[in-house]
């Protein structure tokens, strides 16, 4: 499988995603500069975390105008796998590839901590290695991860089973205390209606090795590898 890791000027999880794809999972990977349009030969595009343009405006609001975004749009329309992590999720929402928006954390603080995520839909290309209701432990690191969508959009997300992950307790209960940023209905990650684009605030690339405290992130990458293989 070949991962394309998209690099905006302020992206900082690009190296971490590359390390996971290449060194941990032994897959092919290359970087895709945001001004370039060549996404040929890639099976999956990763939009990593960071502050694409400093995020002084809204997160992802400027990145969506980068030349590479048009290619990502067509890539997704062709059915290619796209995963947006943290800032990547924010960009995908701004670009309209995913519904909703990510706003300032309700506690108005940046949060870097481990969280528990309940798998809401194990039937996506990104979660096929999980079981329904499985709890994954994955870190977050963001100041604007408070997911919001209007009631119609939310109803549609639920109806079409597009909610991939919810913040939960380690036992899988969805509680206010388990929600680190005030996200609507504890939403941590969603897929598009076709199921080939995932956006999630937590960082799976930070937990693919035992030495880093956990390996639950691997399940997400390995699910994608199953689909492509």
């Amino acid at each position: 499988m070949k991962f394309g890791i998209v690099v905006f000027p302020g992206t900082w999880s690009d190296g971490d995603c590359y390390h996971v794809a290449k060194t941990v999972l032994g897959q092919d990977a290359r970087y895709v500069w945001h001004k370039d349009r060549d996404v040929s030969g890639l099976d999956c595009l990763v939009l990593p975390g960071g502050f694409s343009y400093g995020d002084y405006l809204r997160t992802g609001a400027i990145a969506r105008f980068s030349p590479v975004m048009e290619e990502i749009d067509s890539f997704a329309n062709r059915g290619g796998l796209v995963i947006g992590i943290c800032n990547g999720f924010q960009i995908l929402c701004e670009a309209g590839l995913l519904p909703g928006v990510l706003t300032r954390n309700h506690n108005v603080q940046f949060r870097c901590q481990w969280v528990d995520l309940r798998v809401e839909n194990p039937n996506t290309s990104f979660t096929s290695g999980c079981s329904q209701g499985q709890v994954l432990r994955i870190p977050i690191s963001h100041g604007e991860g408070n997911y919001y969508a209007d009631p119609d959009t939310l109803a549609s997300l639920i109806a079409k089973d597009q909610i991939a992950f919810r913040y939960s307790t380690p036992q899988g209960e969805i509680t206010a205390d388990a929600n680190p940023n005030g996200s609507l209905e504890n939403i941590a990650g969603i897929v598009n209606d076709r199921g080939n684009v995932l956006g999630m605030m937590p960082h799976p690339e930070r937990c693919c090795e035992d030495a880093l405290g956990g390996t639950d992130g691997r399940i997400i990458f390995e699910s994608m590898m199953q689909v492509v293989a």
Partner: protein
Amino acid sequence: MSVSKETLDEIALSQMEYEAIVERLGREPTSVELGMFGSMWSEHCGYKHSKLLLRQLPSSSPRMLVLPGEENAGVVDIGDGLAVVMKIESHNHPSAVEPFQGAATGVGGIVRDIFAMGARPIALLNSLRFGPLDEVQNRNLFRGVVAGISWYGNCIGVPDVGGEVSFSSSYSGNPLVNAMCVGLVEKGGMVRAKASGRGNLLILVGADTGRDGIHGASGLASRTFEDEREMRPTVQVGNPFLEKVLIEACLEAVATGYILAMQDLGAAGLTSTVVESVARSGSGARIDIGKVLRREDGMTAYEIMLSESQERMLVVVSAEHEKAVRHVFDKWDVESIILGEITEDGMVSVYDGDTMEACLPVDVLTDPPLYRVHGVPPAYLEETQSIDLAALPIPTETPESILLRLLSFPDIAGKEWIFRQYDHQVQTNTLQAPGGDAAVLRIKGTGKSIALTTDGNGRYCYLDPFVGGIIAVAEACRNLACVGAEPIALTDCLNFGNPERPEVYYQLEQCVDGMTKACQEMDLPVISGNVSLYNETRGVAIWPTPVIGALGLIEDSGKQCTIAFKDEGDVVVLLGASDVSDDVQSLSGSVYLEIVHGKVAGVPYIDLALEVSVQRLCRRAIYDGLLHSAHDCADGGLAVCLTESCVTGAVGFIAGLTINGRWDAALFGEAQSRIVVSLSADALPALEKLAAEHGVPLVQIGSVGGATFSLPGLLDVALDDLEVAWKGALEKALG
């Protein structure tokens, strides 16, 4: 004499210094030139009161790749063709004026020092001091500083992995904000700050130049500011996004192999960067500030030369490679302009188009007068050192209640409220996150890790600056030993009051002497550092506060230790003591003495030979795989140390010995050179044998287990209660 006292005051030069300038130039300086002297001869850039002292710090080691002060930061070889670059720097005065931007730009500045050497920044640490949190002003400063560090550090993708914070009225109105950055570079890829070669081009890259930060070095950092003058324009404003782009663009430019030298623009902006770069090679420079991109119209030559606008770098390339290098900056949408070129006349000539604004000899600019003041012991020492600790009443308050109070004291309380606001994981190297004795980062592509910590106890240094200086070094290295790392280099930030006052100079001198002694004993070099003087409010100096940043090496990443107790039934052993002593001398300078008895007094003590042996033993025991946990016994003493191992491990402790006599000294005394370890009972004979070989006393004090912290006859507290007191205190103190 054509210069007014007000003008000299503004740039913090004395009349005598002005006269020395006139004499050495053979003429009066122009206004621009005087501004340049004010900066270069400032305490901040010129180290007028500290250089003679700093020279005595050990600065050689087979691992060192550059001499201290020769480059933007110190560099040590860690094997495998790799080197670690590190430095710590203060941003105290700007943070006092504007905590958010002051702290943020402190991070930005130290990060630029690291990538200026071609190294990728891989870790940040912060050492912070504030006044007590029951005062609203201190809460605001604390919140602002943490938010500023979080804002800047998180945006640039460098993990903030550790540090320390302490609160005392001594820092009210004069907080300390010391930022440390660590970078990794392939030995062959290191870039120097020495600009040479006639005709080579000076290229200015990064942000436009504005009116922010003018007189930052000379005015803000080099004198006390007790009056209510508006200081805000001297604080710079940061742009972390540009910094992030600058990191990537500069490292990519370095990879072309065409960069001859690089230096960041920090204190005193263009002036110090150009002057210092060419001074290192004895060259000169001719620059045209007419080319400098500006944020606003009407900026004078004086303002351009002294602006401390952030996120700017000076890059030196040959004319032949200029296009290739600037192409990289274009790719990243970073502005670059040709500022001038290297000359061989030993002069810095500043033009604005065709008009000459300044022409000064580099060797005079970089040769400020150096002062040695006759230090006099401060009067308070007689009183604090003569206290009869044995006469202290034993509290009527229960040991349990005192323990809970100490755990909630912000110095000791858990720091999660701070570090959860910092991205401490990005770059996926963080094996031990903030909250332990030292942070541990793996070095990808090798089996090694590095360990990092900062330490410095102002209370001890206040009570005995010499012993305090020793303890600062010893404790930083002890923190490294507790994770299993061998210390290989230090960086230091010396935070003191006004050195022109004999009693402050005494503190500075004694602290540096103590640090020197400890470094010699431990065979450690100080590879870089920074000095922040004039930390005073209304004529009262802060506690003398040397902050030590320490780098340790773990050759095998699999062999490291954390502070958390692991397994029920493990035995708990105190290394470095043959009993749990109730010696009241150990209460000297303790948190207990301050919190419970309201006294900062006594004479701290350390046995350096024992310290060295204890650390060696701890590292060896970890290397041999004997230990399940190791934790430095420090602020708050043995009871706090044990509690932290319990809470982080979510398991209790039960003492196996009884404490007689002064239980307050036994539980809360801060005797040095002690480490609490836990291990399986099977491993105890091996540890005892090792300890005997190292000549280190030890005593078995209890075992891991249960859900309480239990010292039979003294206290028995539920883990949950301890956790609530310790974990939630900081947030609670902030209201």
